[in-house]
């Protein structure tokens, strides 16, 4: 059977007809309880108590196969589901956006189908519907994953098990904060500092509350192999995930992942760090219940809740920075926004007088006062 490539746009012009045609597809879906992720990563029998990090979809072996026509059916169903999400929610940040969902669907296809995904997205000239394609998850799992995304509001990054961040692809899973685009700028700032002064390249950096290891890996890569980075986290899941990401980028020799709270695992480095970076939990506790569903329902509170006014961890970091950084050392912290940034700058320049120089607020690309940076005197 040869189908015309124009299907995509034809279908989008005739939406009602399509949803009618596809209404039968969901019936063939596996029961929602089938947990794909757990099946995938069943640990080897001799493994210890700590569960190893999950394998993201794009690294899974393409051990499933399905006829293209069936994959198409899934794709149409998923597209329909994405197009029909309710955009009426009054809180803009807490509603699903069809356009974004369609883009995510494209990426889900990229991650789950081996090689020639244009076949699915409908840009290929002609193709054979009977042809079999290799999948990294079974069709049933794909139906289930997309349902989780839309009905359970499971973050897309947990669905595919990875987040593209800077030029990295980081494995993420429940229990680890998904690194945010804003946080990429911390690495940009570090890059600027180390290009200006080679001294920073040779010293030891610390990334506290590393989560997936994103900042630590980003920093290690701009150090260019000379210095080293110590990444800490309180959560064992984060430690496992970060360790795995470090390994994936071959940075075991540069980054050391240590389990523990903030500066605790760094005792021997007191006064020796040339750089200190962190994206600590900074959301005020009262804001936690009202968070966007993807965040509030799925991401770890430990990585989000910053206490009454959100600055508990940040203030702790400020105190630690004065103790841990060597003279001339650089720090960059992410904050909740203007109010918090100003508070931190205040604290560092007044309460911790004569400890820091050049303390300033840096905005993210959305224009929000996002970071506080400076140097140890």
């Amino acid at each position, binding site marked *: 059977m040869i189908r*015309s*490539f*124009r299907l*995509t*746009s034809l279908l*989008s*012009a*005739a939406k009602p007809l399509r949803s009618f045609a596809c209404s039968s597809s969901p019936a063939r879906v596996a029961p929602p309880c089938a947990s794909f992720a757990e099946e995938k990563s069943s640990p080897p029998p001799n493994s210890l108590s700590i569960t190893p990090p999950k394998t993201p979809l794009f690294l899974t072996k393409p051990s499933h196969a399905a006829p293209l026509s069936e994959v198409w059916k899934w794709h149409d169903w998923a597209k329909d589901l994405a197009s029909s999400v309710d955009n009426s929610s009054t809180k*803009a*940040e807490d509603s699903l*956006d069809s*356009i*974004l969902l369609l*883009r*995510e669907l494209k*990426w889900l296809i990229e991650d789950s189908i081996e090689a020639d995904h*244009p076949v699915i997205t409908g*840009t*290929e*000239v002609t193709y054979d519907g009977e042809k079999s394609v290799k999948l990294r998850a079974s069709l049933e799992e794909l139906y289930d994953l997309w349902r989780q995304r839309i009905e359970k509001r499971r*973050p*897309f*990054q947990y669905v595919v098990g990875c*987040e*593209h*961040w*800077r*030029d*990295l692809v980081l494995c993420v899973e429940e229990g680890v*904060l*998904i690194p*945010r*685009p*804003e946080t*990429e700028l911390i690495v940009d700032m570090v890059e600027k500092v180390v290009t200006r002064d080679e001294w920073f390249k040779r010293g030891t950096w610390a990334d506290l509350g590393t989560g997936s290891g994103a900042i630590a890996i980003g920093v290690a890569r701009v150090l260019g192999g000379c210095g080293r980075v110590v990444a800490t986290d309180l959560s064992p899941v984060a430690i496992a995930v970060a360790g795995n990401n470090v390994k994936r980028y071959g940075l075991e020799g540069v980054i050391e992942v240590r389990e523990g709270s903030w500066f605790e695992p760094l005792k021997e480095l007191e006064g020796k760090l040339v750089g200190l970076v962190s*994206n600590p*939990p*900074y*959301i005020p506790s009262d*804001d936690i219940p009202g*968070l*966007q569903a*993807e*965040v509030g329902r799925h*991401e770890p509170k430990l*990585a*989000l809740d910053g206490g009454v006014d959100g600055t508990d961890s940040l203030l702790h970091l400020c105190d630690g920075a004065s103790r841990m950084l060597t003279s001339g050392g650089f720090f960059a912290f*992410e*904050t*909740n*926004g203007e109010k918090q940034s100003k508070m931190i700058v205040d604290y560092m320049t007044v309460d911790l007088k004569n400890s820091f120089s050049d303390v300033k607020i840096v905005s*993210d*690309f*959305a*224009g*929000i006062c*996002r970071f506080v940076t400076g140097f140890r005197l």
Partner: protein
Amino acid sequence: MSSLIINRSRSRAVLLWKTHVIKIASIFSHAFADSDSASGFSSDSARSFKTTSSGFGSRKISNLAFSRSNFVSTTRPLSSEAVHVASTCDRLTVERIIANQWPILDENESDWKSHAAAIAQSIQVIKRRLQWKKLLVRLRMLSVELNKPHLWDDPTHAGKISREHGSLTGKMKGVMTFERELLEHIDMLKLAKEEKDSELESETMSALMEMRRVSKEKELEALLSAENDHCSCYIEVQAGAGGTESNDWASMVMDMYKTWAQRRKFSVAVVDEMPGEMAGIKRATIKVNGEYAYGYAKAEVGVHRLVRISPFDSGKRRHTSFAAVAVIPILGDGSTRVQINDSDLRIERFRSGGAGGQHANTTDSAVRIIHIPTGITATCQNERSQHMNKASAMAVLQSRLDQLEMARQTAMNAQHTQSLTEISWGNQIRTYVLHPYRMVKDLRTNYEVSDPDSVLEGDLDGFILSFLSSSLDKGDDEN
């Protein structure tokens, strides 16, 4: 391609040496004395012919007695102009072949005159497309420039000059070699006939047939000989006024280019896409990667008009919609590119308000980069990280600024360097009619096709090639 010709001419030369010990002399001027084709030939008995511009048409060259000694010579007119006219031993030149108006028969007909006439005609077309006279003038200017003693004081300028000189010399040599090869084959064929060497005759005949085939390819190549034609490019489509109907049309146009590019084995990546409210796109940018992507796609610049019964009109009325297309070359590393200062840039991220940071989990990391001095912007949202979106938007911005600079600096074919905002909606290049009749017609060339579906499915080469050839082939005085 030129190496292919050289190889072929070498093997033929060996053949010639084996079967007939005949001396062929080639006289090349300093500029064209490429050792590849001259080596192996002794020039001690060389004779040069002076070509005169008068009266060659009246001469019955084919009836001239065939002389025992064969020569293919390249003669230099007394004026010592850089134009070298190759001819056979009996003074047959490409121009004379054309003047003879030998009938061009089917390729399978074993008639050397037919082949020769077809090849000569192709050579003429190629020269016209390369703007031969201008090319020679430019080449002379560049040679003068290259010989200036302090040229390399400005390495950027010098690099540009020597690159252009190299590229033009290559093109010129290619044509000259091809021309010479044709005449050599003709000599060979006549010789074979005279010697009744049927093996050599059929060998030469098939060589001529092969040349005829190659000449058609060369005609096409010559269409894409402008400076940046070999580059990859961005194609941008913007919907005209009219909401959903024209947004849908814009996305149809974009799909047309995506499939066209894929058929041509170019790789396609969506860089920027602003969807329409109901359907289609308001505007979109794709990156088309591959050799000569720009050379082909530049033919599509302008406004594309659609006439159809709108599927979005419940009254089933006929609608006319417009979509504007712009094409931007992505200059290679060798080219001089505009320097962008970081301090001239403002980088913005689209958000629907909100606190951002840890509060928000979104896969949307689109960025817009604004070049403050020019007001030029670039957007990318299809990458999976903000960093990559930024890099991709920077690349678009760079190309837009390069394009602006090119338009400013040179008097390049203005219509190809227009940016999307400059394309006037009056500048219609093509109409696609789906109702009441079915036709796609190019308003520049009058090229038309009665099957709009095939065109919308990316079958655009007919339109592109007819436009490229018409824009280069007009004005016979060029040659």
